[in-house]
Structure formats: structure tokens, C-alpha cells
């Protein structure tokens, strides 16, 4: 099987800062990948380049063999790549249910059923009619997470899904991510908590100053000299 996502020599500069520097990585379908690195190492920018929110300066992104770099974000989404944001981006003056419905097209009744299922799945079905802006931080985080599941994308990019989420909620979220993997979805997630990464990911990519520093199973990565130095040294 060819990789589902293939990033080759991706580079993005902001003025003098090279936020992503010749990064290459490849993801196989049906697995959970971690993306770690200190703050400012380019993780979010890498997500933005893949999803078309910022235009890469050089390099290629292929999804299921098709070039997707240069496409608009909504086009990338319709190829089957969904994402969440590090800073919550629900639509505050739409209700929780509307936040889910708005991303769907086609059969209205079916979309409604799916939205109901997902709201129950993360146990916020009683808040369906509430404006998203009135939900708690954790509830908004869950809402954003299930919003990306509405259209059943094949690759899901999660930018710090666990940040600011309490223990119970976190475990549910992690279970949900595993359940998605078991259904054949591919997940790439940014996470700082090494315990979470260890328990979830099969392969981890490490970014530092925009460059890929290391790649491998979390156990090996954790004891990698360069990784330890990037995180704790200097």
C-alpha cells in the first residue's frame, strides 16, 4: 500500500523565519502518528501547509498520490483531510448542532442523524441547541473534534487536542481517536504530554526549529539524545 500522505521537502518561511524547513514525512493509512517539538518548532505551520491555509514556499504534499499543495483549504478538505485547531475555532453564534450541520451537504435527515450520534458519542447531546460560544472550553473542544468527524475524513490532523482538557474528558477523547484508527482512519496529532504520545502513537515525528529531528516509535524517540537536548538542553 502506498502511503496515504506524503510530504516531501516542505518549506515555509515567514519573513526571516523558516518555520518549516525541508520537512519530509510519510503516513500509512490506519495508523496514529504523533508530531512533537518545542513551542515554535513549526508543528502548526506544517498543519497549515498540508491543509492549504498557508501557501508553502517549496516542496510537495501528496494525498493518496494526488498533489494537494497549492489547493485551497476547502478543496483539501473535500479530498478527505479534516483538522482541528490549537486555538478553538468553533462558530460561536451557531448552535452546537448547527456547527455540525453546516459542514455537511446532501441528505439533510442523514446529516441530522449523524450529528445526533456524534453529540451522544461525546455526551453533549443535551447541549445541541445551545450556542457554541456558551459552551465550556472542554465542550467546545469536543464539539470541534466531532465537527471534523461529520464528513468522515480519511486523514485527521489534531492540533493539541488534549491541551486544557480534564482527565476524564481526555481519556474519552483518546478512546475516540483509537476507535477512529480501528475504523481505518489515519490520525496525525500534535501533543506535548509524552505519556499521551506513548500510549497512543505508533510513530512519532520530532520537529525542532522547523526541521525534522527524528522519527520512530515513541519509546526510541524518548531516549534519543538529540530529542532530549531539543526539549531540555540549551
Amino acid at each position, binding site marked *: 500500500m502506498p502511503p496515504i500522505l506524503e510530504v516531501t521537502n516542505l518549506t515555509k518561511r515567514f519573513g526571516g523565519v523558516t518555520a518549516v524547513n525541508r520537512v519530509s514525512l510519510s503516513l500509512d493509512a490506519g495508523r496514529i502518528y504523533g508530531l512533537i517539538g518545542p513551542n515554535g518548532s513549526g508543528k502548526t505551520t506544517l498543519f497549515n501547509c498540508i*491543509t492549504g*491555509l498557508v501557501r508553502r514556499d517549496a516542496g510537495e504534499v501528496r494525498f493518496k498520490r494526488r498533489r494537494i499543495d497549492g489547493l*485551497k*483549504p*476547502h478543496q483539501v*478538505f*473535500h479530498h478527505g483531510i*479534516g*483538522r482541528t*485547531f490549537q486555538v478553538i*475555532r*468553533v*462558530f*460561536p*453564534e*451557531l448552535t452546537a448542532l*448547527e456547527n455540525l*450541520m*453546516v*459542514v*455537511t*451537504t446532501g441528505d*439533510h435527515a442523514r446529516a441530522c442523524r449523524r450529528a445526533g450520534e456524534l453529540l451522544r458519542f461525546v455526551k453533549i447531546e443535551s447541549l445541541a*441547541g*445551545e*450556542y457554541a460560544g456558551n459552551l465550556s472550553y472542554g465542550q467546545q473542544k469536543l464539539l470541534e473534534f466531532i*465537527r*471534523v468527524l461529520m*464528513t468522515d475524513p480519511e486523514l485527521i490532523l489534531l492540533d493539541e487536542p488534549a491541551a486544557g482538557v480534564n482527565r476524564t474528558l481526555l481519556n474519552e477523547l483518546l478512546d475516540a481517536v483509537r476507535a477512529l484508527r480501528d475504523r481505518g482512519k489515519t490520525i496525525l496529532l500534535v501533543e506535548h504530554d509524552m505519556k499521551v504520545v506513548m500510549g497512543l502513537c505508533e510513530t512519532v515525528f520530532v520537529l525542532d526549529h522547523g526541521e525534522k529531528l527524528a522519527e520512530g516509535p515513541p519509546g526510541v524517540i524518548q531516549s534519543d539524545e538529540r530529542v532530549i537536548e531539543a526539549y531540555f538542553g540549551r
Partner: protein
Amino acid sequence: MRRLGLAALAALAVVALALYPLEGTGYGVRVMLQLFMWIALAQSWNLISGLTGYVSFGHVAFYGMGAYSTAIVIVRLGWPWLPAALLGGAMAMVLALVIGWPCLRLKGPYFAIAMLGLNEVLRVAASYFEGLTGGGLGLSLPTLHASVPIYYAMGLTAAGVTLLTYVILTSRFGLRLMTIREDEVAAEAMGIDTHRYKLYAFLLSAVAPGIVGGLSARDQGYIEPISVFPLLMTITMIVMVLFGGKGTIWGPVLGAVLLFTFQELVWARFIYLHQLLFGAIIVTVVLLMPRGILGVLQQKYNLPRTI
């Protein structure tokens, strides 16, 4: 039960308005006709700016476009007024397409300024192309007493945009428009082609101003560049919507009715006081009640935006 009561009330209002010209004075009919015009204008501005958050600071350009298109085909080609006014609506949509395609790529404030510029350009163009528009001297339409049919046409246009707003606000199409206002980046990332949706909203928001521009031109019998492209008219639309409640169905109607009534009562008597009060209303609304009357109620009692 409450819904039924409201429906009955609405039906009663429609019947009363439909019968009004039989009883009302000529002056009364023309006042009502202007109220309908303001409802249609405010409601249209709400479609683009209330829903997508893209503030159109030159929306009167579509009104002027409709007025000139209508007047020109009536004067030069002898068209009857109704098809002429419909052509005015179509021409306004064409203008919206030509302007919206590039300008809706601009971010919020730049779009607002571009629209302001558009209105100025059109006003100058209307003065410049004398052969077609009569230039600064304006264009006189042949005499015709048609206030009553125009009253109905205006009323239908106002009702039509309100119905359109209802249909949009209760559909996923409307939700997509609102995601642009809420968070354009997230909307794009969630698969919404924001440029296309902004353009749809813009086209829909141009048609009624084009039609009512044509109908007013016919009703007034004379147009000139400064009378159909006044900045004050755009500002009035904006204030009506902000006052009543943007992004709701009845907010623009309520705002139009209240402010228009206020203008009719105060304007004739105290022309300077009127401008002062109008300015005071703008400042008060923006500072104290940015959501407008219905917006506040909607938020406070968690009402649907179909109010």
C-alpha cells in the same frame, strides 16, 4: 399557540396593507411605498453584511444602478415600468458579480472601503456619460400616475426579500454564510468555499435594491446622480439593520419601521434636530446595543434567529 397568534397577526397586517390604497390618501400611499423601499433595502443589506459580516459601505450603488437602468430603458426605449424595474434588479446583480468577484477577496475593512469607492465611481460615471444618462442634468421620465401599482410592487419586493431571508436563515446555505462572519478561516478549513458563498450572498443582496431603485425612479419621475447615489442612504440602511438586529429576519423590518416613522415625524419639522438625533441614534446603538433590539432579545432569551 403563540405561533398561530403571530401568523394570524401577520396575515391581518398583510390584508390591511393590501387594502390600504383603496382608503389611503395619495400622500399616505407614497409614504408607505417608501417604507416598503426601506424594508427591502435594509433586508438586503442584512443578507450580505448581517450574515457574512462583510460590511457593504456602498450598497446604495445597486439602488442607483437599478434606478438608472430602469429610467434609461423607459426614456430611451419606451419600456413599461414593471419589466424596466425588473431589468434594474438584473443589472444590479450583474454589477454585484463584476464588483464582488474581485472585491470579496479583500478582507473586511478593505471590502467596506472598496464598496464606498464603487458608489463614488458610479456617481461620477452617471454624470459623465451624458448621452445615456443625461449627465448632471438628470433624466426626466414621462409623466405617469402609477403610485398604487408601484405601492404593490414595492410591497411585494419587501415581502420577497423577507421571505428569501427566512428561507436562507433556516437552511444550511444560510449557516454557511454565517460561518464566514463567525470564523472565515475555520469555514474554509471545514470545506466551505467562502469566496463562492460570499458572492452568492452579495448577488442576492443586490437584486432587491436594483428593483426598488427602478421603482423609485419611476415613482419620482426624475433622477440625477446625487439623488440616486447618496452615501446617506447606505448609512440609513446600516443603521436600520443595526438598530433592529442584524442577522435576524425581523430585525431589519423593525429597524426600518421604527427609524422611518421617526424620520417622517421629526424630519419635516426639525431638519437640523433630525440629523442630530439620527447621529445620536447611531452612536447609542453602536456603543450600547451593538446587537440591536432583536439581537439583544435573541441572546438574552436564547431565541432562534428566525425572530
